[in-house]
């Protein structure tokens, strides 16, 4: 079986500053991986490099999704190929309603995948159904994208987009940040509902908290631009107890 996501010795920098310094990671279909690490270890950079944000220079290594080389693909081509990033800070876009945006996005992805676009009525049914499951009401669908949304609403909205777009690989960047316990549970339920044999997930998180609700198959510790340790879910608990200090030293002196 070939990997869903295969990252090999990836190096990336912003200007003169190296951030990813030879990162390797492989995720199989159906697996949920968690990457934990201290602030500044490069976790969010990894999510941006994988999804194709401007401003990062790839210095070496490779990244493949379903065997497709991501390096030269535009962000939307990666989305069509099945890459989904749930943003740590979802953008507010005034004037564009949630509904309009979701429909445009879904149809762009479907077109790209060689599928037929869906019509307004079908879409409405689909969006409402997915929204209801996440506790997103009609009112939220009609409002401009994320404008005036609470932190919890923004994160639920990200999961809704993921549910609609049905990606191959979902990267959740600090999706737990800024959520109270009830909001966290709702989001986690949404994520769990999207676990599927053909889909991979990469949870980027600073704390163990999210992992109480979304059980990962593999946990990685990231420090100083590399994966410094990998293990099972028990690794997350260990980190919660002992902190990152050991790993930071290890990474710096490696």
């Amino acid at each position, binding site marked *: 079986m070939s990997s869903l996501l295969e990252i090999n010795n990836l190096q990336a920098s912003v200007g003169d500053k190296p951030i990813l310094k030879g990162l390797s990671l492989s995720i199989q279909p159906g697996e949920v991986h968690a990457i934990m690490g201290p602030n500044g270890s490069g976790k969010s950079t990894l999510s941006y490099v994988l999804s194709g944000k*401007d401003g990062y220079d790839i210095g070496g290594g490779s990244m493949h999704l379903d065997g497709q080389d991501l390096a030269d693909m*535009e962000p*939307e081509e990666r989305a069509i190929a099945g890459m989904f990033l749930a943003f740590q800070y979802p953008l507010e*876009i005034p*004037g564009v309603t949630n509904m309009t945006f979701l429909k445009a996005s879904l149809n762009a992805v479907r077109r790209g995948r060689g599928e037929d676009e869906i019509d307004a009525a079908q879409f409405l049914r689909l969006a409402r159904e997915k929204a209801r499951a996440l506790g997103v009401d009609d009112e939220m669908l009609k409002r401009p994208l994320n404008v005036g949304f609470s932190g919890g609403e923004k994160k639920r909205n990200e999961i809704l*987009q993921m549910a609609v777009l049905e990606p191959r690989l979902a990267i959740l960047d600090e999706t737990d940040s800024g959520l109270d316990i009830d909001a966290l549970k709702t989001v986690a339920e949404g994520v769990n509902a999207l676990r599927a044999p053909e889909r991979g997930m990469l949870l980027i998180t600073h704390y163990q908290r999210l992992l109480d609700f979304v059980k990962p198959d593999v946990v990685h510790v990231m420090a100083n631009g590399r994966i410094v340790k990998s293990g099972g879910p028990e690794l997350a608990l260990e980190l919660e107890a002992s902190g990152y200090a050991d790993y930071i030293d290890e990474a710096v002196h490696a």
Partner: protein
Amino acid sequence: MLDAASYFEQVKQALPGDVEARAQALHKAEALGLPTRRLEHWHYTDLARLLKKPTQENAALVATDFSALNPSEVRFEGGVMQASDDAGLADWPALSLTGAEDASDAMVLYNQALAQAGVVLELPEGGQKTLLVTTQGSAPQHLSHHTSLARGAELILIDDNMASGYSNVAWDIELAEDSKLTFVHLQQAGRQVATSTVRLAENATLTRLNLLSGQDIARHAGTIALQAAGARAELHSAILGTDAAHNDVTYVIDHQAADTQSNTTSYHALAGQARGVFQGKVIVQRDAQRVDAQMQARAMMLSDGPEMDAKPELEIYADDVQCAHGTAIGEIDADALFFLRTRGLDEATARQFLITGFIEQVLDACDHEPLVASLRAHIETKIATVLGQGSAS
């Protein structure tokens, strides 16, 4: 513009009303001359110079479908009323020089001197109406419109100006207690100077939406007088500027009484060599306490050529007020663009999306669903026609 004096000589016999008063207005206008940037009110629109530019070709005019509103209609072409399906209008000439107290503005005076026709609509107490005024044609036209709403009356007024030539249009509007006016301006072509004066009595509400997308010259100046408590003005403009378009929105919002409110926004999407101008002056008169006046001007610069000029002014003479203004000028937000692309939209589509969203904020203050739907369709068609793919990049 043609020579006003000789034009006046040609047409004066055919013009209704007091020819002598017209001649005086013309005399004053000629003495002032066409506005230049030396006049603060015209600081960024040097009309004397602009009118010397060659006229610009216009992109295809979009006929906007207002049928869902089932409006009465009246149409002007070349300054002449062409058709009115029993719009319930009073007789013109009701040419009055009221509403033109600002005799220092030559364009108002030219309008007084040369006005050929116009709407006179007096909506009685509790009356309700939707009126669509369309203006077409390439010949120069001077229109003078007068509207008054009695207590509790409600009017949706749509001024759809598709004239491809020069037009000088004046609106004089009186809103009595508890009346409500939704006033829409569509401008798609030509060289248009529009001047409006609206006076609001107690608890009267004005919602004004300007959608300007012509590629030549548009100047929309409005004076809004909030004369009694509870009066409220929502003034929102969207400008789609391309090619050599010069679009100017200028407001004077005069809070003459306590407990009045105004909210003004302006959204400029500029490409090509377009120039966008927003001037807004909020005046809070002495003793007009508890006024709430907000003003925001935003511009999105879509290419290398455009220019945006903003002058949001506050002139405050009362202390217990909430007044703020803001201006933000910049390119399309790169993070928003990236976000949309991670959701599968290609760059051109994502840009168009952001531009559309930006412009459509102009509709936020309007709660009339069918009207919003018509205007949304207008905006989307306009953006597709005017910006299209590529020219926006």
